């Protein structure tokens, strides 16, 4: 009962909304009505258009995130290990980091044209910073004794990174990746709404321009569902790594 209680407000709202629209009391076109939204959503699912758009958005978000994680972890490890390097590139990073990723859309368009690479690049720019900053601070915080163990065993730099540094920093790197992953979806949809003719963001714009308000709402609900699933998945990954961390303490 306690859990279900949280469902009361949305159901009540939807019921009121539907009733208001059915009795003709609510005539605003921009609000559509729940039954129409449901039908539009079901139709889009069945004909597959929303699934194709979903795949395109996820593909771009994942590509960007992948690049961001690779670049962020690599540079984060180097910056975390070397104080001189951190002092050298630190101000540059702090200068680049606050630039909103979407501000790079025009530039990315010039470089890549429309399509996946351009979207992936903007997502990557937005996502690299949380990963880089989390990795660098995690690596800086590694128990110095562990690095001495690596030295005592004459490990190569690659072995030291792979066997000592990355596992030791993994929990905190994961946190950065989780923040970045949430951000990836936001940036991808934004790029699609603003300029890129693909994915869920573009579908939203198309529905709006053709005054398919019902479809717009259906897509919004679908997006919130995607975000929910993404959070759930990331939470699970986080808990799994957290659990192994706890077992290790």
């Amino acid at each position: 009962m306690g859990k279900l209680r949280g469902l009361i407000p949305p159901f009540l709202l939807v019921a009121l909304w539907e009733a208001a629209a059915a009795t003709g009391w609510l005539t605003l076109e921009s609000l559509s009505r729940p039954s129409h939204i449901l039908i539009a959503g079901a139709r889009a699912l069945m004909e597959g258009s929303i699934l194709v758009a979903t795949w395109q958005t996820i593909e771009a978000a994942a590509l960007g995130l992948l690049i961001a994680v690779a670049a962020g972890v690599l540079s984060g490890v180097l910056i975390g290990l070397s104080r001189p390097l951190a002092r050298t590139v630190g101000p540059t990073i702090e200068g680049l980091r606050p630039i909103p990723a979407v501000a790079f859309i025009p530039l990315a368009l010039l470089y890549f044209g429309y399509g996946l690479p351009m979207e992936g690049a903007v997502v990557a720019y937005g996502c690299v910073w949380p990963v880089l900053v989390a990795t660098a601070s995690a690596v800086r915080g590694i128990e110095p004794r562990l690095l001495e163990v690596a030295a005592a065993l004459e490990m190569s730099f690659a072995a030291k990174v792979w066997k000592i540094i990355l596992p030791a920093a993994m929990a905190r790197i994961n946190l950065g990746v989780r923040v970045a992953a949430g951000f990836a979806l936001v940036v991808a949809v934004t790029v699609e709404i603003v300029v890129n003719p693909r994915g869920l963001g573009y579908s939203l714009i198309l529905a709006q321009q053709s005054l398919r308000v019902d479809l717009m709402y259906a897509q919004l609900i679908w997006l919130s569902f995607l975000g929910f699933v993404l959070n759930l998945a990331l939470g699970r990954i986080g808990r799994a790594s957290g659990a192994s961390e706890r077992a290790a303490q």
Partner: protein
Amino acid sequence: MAHGHSAQDLMRPAGSAQPAMSVREVSLTLGGPPGRLILDAISFDVRQGEFLSIVGPSGCGKTTLLRLMAGLMPPTSGEITFEGAPVRRPSLSRAIVFQDYTNALLPWRTVSANIALSLEARGVARAERDDRVAALLKKMGLQHAAAQFPGQLSGGMQQRVQIARCLAQQPRIMLMDEPFGALDAITRQGLQDELMALAADEKMTVAFITHDLEEAIYLGDRVFVLAANPGRVVEEIEVGLERPRHQLLTREDPRFLKHRHRLFGLLQGH
């Protein structure tokens, strides 16, 4: 070469091998200039196959001395050689047992995988690793803990894991920094006896740092006493107690007590 013999050479018994490790006029200054003199012109040899205890009060630089011997840091002046070659960086042939086993073990690896780390570092083939790890687990009494993580074990067990990992290096010297300092008395005595048996079995060369003078005498073939400010060797004794030693009988032996009195006075005097 008529004048080629130093006093050190003449003091050495005829026919003895070269020392495992040789520390010559080693000084260390930190900070500054002018800085603080931590170790002042320390010279000694670690003989092949001996158990050398180095005892001193806290702040005498004994841990620092061990770090220099390991190659974890360079001395400001003087030279340390191991098997005739200068020590410049850490080496697999010189295993280091740290006091803080909790920090020195990889918390995300099981006991087996922690021991295997040394084998991986030495490039031992995967197939061979399992056998080696199993043998070391048995030797250190860790069979039942093989699949556990260090955080699930008692301090004594964790220190066993670290010692096993060091043995897996197949080192030619063990450098041990107060390895039993953080353990309770009963666990410490058990590990002391195991370590001595191990050292005897493998004919290990050991340099053992401690602040506990009874431990130094009980374990050592020789004991060096360091004094603080700056750290320097003020006394060297040959223990001369036969092995195997016994926690009660050895510690009640008049020779043990004589050493203890002498060292106690030295440590109090500074």
